[in-house]
């Protein structure tokens, strides 16, 4: 096991940031820590990296207790922090060389690694640029290059795509998949469920410093009865009508927000037809109709009663 975190407790005064948090990461995985802002993802990462003091619990990385002076362990870890951590006074290639040089002493090997990292994130034509001349997306790519240049066995990315345009985001996600194919184990934190769903082989859902659920995306979705979800755009729906809908066969949950009726089923057939028949019978006019498979947001909603984006 590459990372083994057990019963981790971290308090900021009265605030319980991590509440007996557990995390196990096996070699070769892409583990996603998914949770809303303030759920404790970054705190957990900082504890794992020995940057933060914690009140209780154990952290082992590469089978060894993680300590601030565990340089042998640190040598195998790469970090891409949430805030871009580069020197504005150094050019792109100098930044990558600087951070790579903190891990790799041999100048010749380092030169090769820096070239590969710059090439990997697609910053070849910007290598002589200073960071302030780069767009947000390119800056994020530089941030990643500085974290991966030394070819870490374990790569920790803390919300690496915040504020990034879709093109750069896709490139970043594809890059992470490629690193994983090359043998890097990845821990990826995000509050974007689509990213986590698209990228991660295993997902840990967090809220209020706790691990709420762990599994593959299929396993997590199976946790919420696996039924379909139907959404209908309706201009007006009375509370009485909503209550009636909740009593329809196989309906497990129904709510109406922003002129949109969302209904979840736990099985059954022709659920959509039954719902539309009901609306017609009540003379309720509706616009577009969607039938969806459950998402991680539904899983989060099921467990916490809140939307992931709340």
């Amino acid at each position, binding site marked *: 096991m590459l990372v083994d975190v057990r019963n981790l407790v971290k308090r900021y005064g009265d605030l319980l940031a991590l509440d007996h948090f557990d995390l196990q990461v096996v070699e070769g995985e892409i583990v996603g820590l998914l949770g809303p802002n303030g759920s404790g993802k970054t705190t957990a990462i900082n504890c794992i990296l020995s940057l933060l003091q914690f009140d209780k619990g154990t952290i082992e990385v590469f089978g060894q207790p993680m300590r601030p002076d565990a340089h042998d362990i640190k040598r195998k870890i790469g970090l891409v922090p949430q805030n871009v951590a580069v020197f504005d*006074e150094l050019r792109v290639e*100098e930044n990558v060389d600087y951070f790579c040089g903190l891990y790799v002493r041999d100048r010749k090997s380092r030169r090769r690694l820096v070239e590969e990292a710059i090439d990997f994130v697609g910053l070849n034509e910007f290598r002589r640029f200073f960071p302030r001349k780069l767009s947000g997306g390119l800056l994020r790519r530089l941030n990643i290059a500085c974290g991966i240049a030394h070819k870490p066995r374990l790569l920790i990315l803390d919300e690496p795509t915040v504020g990034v345009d879709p093109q750069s985001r896709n490139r970043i996600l594809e890059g992470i998949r490629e690193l994983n194919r090359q043998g890097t184990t990845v821990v990826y934190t995000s509050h974007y469920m689509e990213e986590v769903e698209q990228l991660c082989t295993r997902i840990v859902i967090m809220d209020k410093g706790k691990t709420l659920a762990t599994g593959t995306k299929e396993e997590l979705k199976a946790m919420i009865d696996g039924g379909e979800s139907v959404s209908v755009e309706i201009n007006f729906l009375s509370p009485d009508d909503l209550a009636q809908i909740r009593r329809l066969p196989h309906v497990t949950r129904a709510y109406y927000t922003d002129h949109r009726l969302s209904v979840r089923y736990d099985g059954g057939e022709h659920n959509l037809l039954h719902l539309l028949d009901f609306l017609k019978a009540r003379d309720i006019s509706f616009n577009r109709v969607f039938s969806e498979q459950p998402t991680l947001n539904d899983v989060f909603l099921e467990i916490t009663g809140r939307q992931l984006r709340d």
Partner: protein
Amino acid sequence: MFMHVFSYRFKCLLHDRETMFWTLLFSLVLATFFYFAFGNLTDRLESFNPIGVAVVDNRAYRNDARLRQVLASLSQPGKGQLLELAEVSEEQAKSLLDTGDVAGVVKVNEKIELVVRQSGIEESILKAILDEYVFMSRTVMRVLANNPAAVREITDRKSYTEQISFSNANPDTMLGFFYALMAMACMYSSFWGLRNTIDVQADLSARGARRSVAPTHKLTVVLADALAALSVSFAEVLILLVYMAFVLRIDFGNQVGYIVLTCLAGCVAGVSFGSLVGTFVRGSGSVKTAVLIGLNMTMSFLAGLMWAPIKDLVSRKVPPLSYVNPAALISDAFYSLYIFGSHPRFFINIGLLFMLSALMCTASFMKLRRTRYASV
């Protein structure tokens, strides 16, 4: 590893335009300003223009050969010229006095008369010259009448005191301003020290977090950063010194070696002080910068860099403060070169600066070496 961190740190600091402005360009601009504002102060204070005097060219004057000889010698053009003499008619003399072209009119009758329009320094000098002439003339006449052989002794004036310099130094009002400026430039090194600590602490910057995660010993990073900061700040102070010496032509005499040593000790103290503030003052980078500026101003004030008498007051009333204030030690080192030119006091200051720096560095590192933070 040390050289890797040092070389990139050096490059980083060199490209930090904002800090570079305050630590180098500001000092150069201030030196230029001082030069133009006070540059001619000494010349103005020490320069002397010959005093205009009109002598009524009458028969009595023409017959007084000694007076004519004395006035002519005092009007000889050259460095020692005291008077600007005009031998004119009485009307012309009056006219010159009215227009202010001359400070006084000398008229020889039975007695020598001096006519002035107002009392002032020039008028007083004219009066003193004439009084001295009259006194000496009478004395010589009396001696000639009684003992002619003694006349030679009257004219041979001998001084029984010897004027010697207090030190080898060449105290110059102007030089004091430029030494104070160099002391300020040394203290500005503290901004580099502060920047270093921000970039090394995970709870203050993302760069600090990334560097803390790397498998590099903290002492290596801290020392390499500090050496880079010291190199940049010392180079800046040397540039300032060269600019003052060769562009502004400020004469630092034969003390240049000691001045450079003071600058080095001052920069070491400055960088150490910045590190101390960066590690021990709580708050964000902006808060630390504000505190550092405030402390620098206070220390400079107490060192007499803004108001000279406070330095003496602090030395008398709170002597320990002078020994722990880097700005006071730097300024006192310069002061001992500038006033005394003697080196025991200078070396005490330099020694204290290095000791204080060692203490500040040790305290900073003890705090910086902590490896986990309460909050990131």
